[in-house]
């Protein structure tokens, strides 16, 4: 028998250490952009554009102040005539010879993102669960073709889909409405939901339902009381995937919404300050936008593989 050092299944301690070292190095390097986003959100505008880039700096929440407010430039005399500043944001703004003029659009855009992401996720998971159960348990004519059709709707380039959708929504009065976006995201996500959930439901033994039906449950009752409780993990994982897609989506949102229903992704790049992009404010918006995703990624880590391959690969 060859020594352990030559084995693929039982790697030696040294080879483990080298492998671990390289992977950790990669992880650190790939985290730098994220670290930089968070760091920039706590910098003042001058610190954010300093050369060489500042790794150590005095943290400030000016970026967050600028994210939530709009400001106008005023003369020093006018600012001195104002009553004393009431908040940190007030004070920092005045130091830059400006006063807070009002609320920015960030909160409404963020709320739009929440409404559209949750609304479309609910609809996609609801429809997807029913449809997946149908394909999993019944002999549907042309089942393979229909399933492929469902998947193929996801292959279309979003811009190609957006052209006729734009015209259709204009006719129906759905342009720039949350309802329009919810419908669209539901249609995009339902293909993922059907494919993922079919995999999860296929794994639930049919015997459970058959036993329930012998005990007098109807088909619908056994679906509701036997299959659904068994599929909760799968449904939750699917819901999170749909949520992440709808949350991150940019192409449709940028082309089909402009004001009232605009979501955060097309809004954040448009945050500008005086003389160009206000990077600390952009970074602050990005940070707030990314936090939910980071939480969900950690929750989902066991189901990730399945989700990203439409259920083609299961662990």
């Amino acid at each position, binding site marked *: 028998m060859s020594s352990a050092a030559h084995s693929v299944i039982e790697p030696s301690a040294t080879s483990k250490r080298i492998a671990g070292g390289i992977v950790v190095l990669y992880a650190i390097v790939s985290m730098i952009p994220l670290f930089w986003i968070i760091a920039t959100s706590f910098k003042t505008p001058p610190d954010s554009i300093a050369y060489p880039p500042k790794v150590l700096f005095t943290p400030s929440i000016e970026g967050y102040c600028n994210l939530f407010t709009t400001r106008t430039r005023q003369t020093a005399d006018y600012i001195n005539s104002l009553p004393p500043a009431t908040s940190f944001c007030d004070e920092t703004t005045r130091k830059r010879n400006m006063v807070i003029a009002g609320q920015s659009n960030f909160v409404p855009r963020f709320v739009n993102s929440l409404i559209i992401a949750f609304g479309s996720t609910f609809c996609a998971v609801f429809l997807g669960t029913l449809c997946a159960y149908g394909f999993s348990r019944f002999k549907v004519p042309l089942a393979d073709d229909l399933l492929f059709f469902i998947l193929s709707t996801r292959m*279309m380039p979003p811009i190609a889909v957006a052209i006729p959708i734009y015209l259709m929504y204009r006719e129906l009065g759905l342009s720039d409405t949350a309802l329009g976006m919810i419908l669209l995201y539901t249609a995009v996500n339902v293909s993922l939901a059907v494919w993922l959930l079919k995999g999860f439901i296929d794994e639930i033994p049919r015997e459970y339902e058959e036993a329930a039906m012998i005990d007098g449950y109807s088909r619908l009752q056994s679906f509701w009381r036997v299959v659904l409780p068994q599929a909760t993990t799968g449904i939750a994982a699917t819901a999170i995937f749909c949520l992440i897609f709808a949350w991150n989506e*940019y192409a449709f949102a940028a082309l089909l919404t402009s004001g009232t229903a605009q979501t955060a992704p*097309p809004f954040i790049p448009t945050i500008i300050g005086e003389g160009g992009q206000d990077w600390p404010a952009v970074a602050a918006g990005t940070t707030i936008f*990314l936090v939910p995703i980071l939480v969900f990624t950690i929750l989902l880590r066991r189901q990730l593989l399945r989700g990203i391959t439409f259920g083609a690969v299961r662990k």
Partner: protein
Amino acid sequence: MTDANASILERAAETAARATPAPVAARVRGLSDKAVAWLFIGPTMLLLLAINIFPLIWAIYLSFTNYRANRPNEPIKGVGLSNYRRILGDHDTWLAMQATAHFVFWTILLQMLIGFALAYLIDRKFRGHAFGTTIILVPMMLSPAVVGNFWRFLYQPQIGLFTYIVSFFTGIPPTEIDMLSSVTLAPWAIIIVDTWMWTPYVMLICLAGLRSIPDYIYEAAEVDRASNWRQFWSITLPMALPFIMLAVLFRGIENFKMFDMVNLLTGGGPGSTTEVASITLKREAFEKWRTGFSSAFAIILFVAVFGLANIYVKVLNRVKSR
């Protein structure tokens, strides 16, 4: 009705149902399986017909016309195949296709190499490999638009962190590194961001492939004293191949459609050097408002994705069944 009454009724119905033959029982107990099947599948199909198929048919119709969405009152005139002829004969279209091909080729190549290497290393199962995997996976879950936008900041000449690090290691003055405005560097700027973002995706699929190889095959190879190198080429790689190809398929389709990240990073510029197909389509459809022309382009792109994916799936199945 009281609960007691309801349960008596229910029990009576149950007894009745059990005594009757199956088809009658099904009717008594509720909907037939066939009705349930259509009730469950129908709504999804209707939604997809309304939001995907109907617009697609409309786009096919428009692709044969000179319609312009910014002039809805102008009469629509059929122009036959001339939109298609113009696109396929247009030099700019082919340049866009070349830009797309360049982007797809290099992103897939880099992501496969780095992703597979990482998966291979993680499969050594060093201490903390599960935690390391989770950390590595984070970039792919983020919004390509929002994060792509931030990369513009990292790429700024002089003040950008990326520029600073490159200049630190190469000695090139940081004012001369302008990733987004240089004709030669801009295509690589988008390739770098895409690779940063999606290598974890490839890594995850490759890892599944490596883990699907049963230990006894390696054990047998070790009994035969096959070298690690030999084991890699004749066991690891061939057995992980279907997974690698699956990753190529998914990344290929996604990057062929690439829009958000490129739109925010370079917007297709400088000039048209990074104008991938989706960006051309957006310029034609939503800036020049040549709706008929861009519909034809959209159809061509869709047929291309669909055709390539179909061929690829066939190859994939052949590899899998081998």
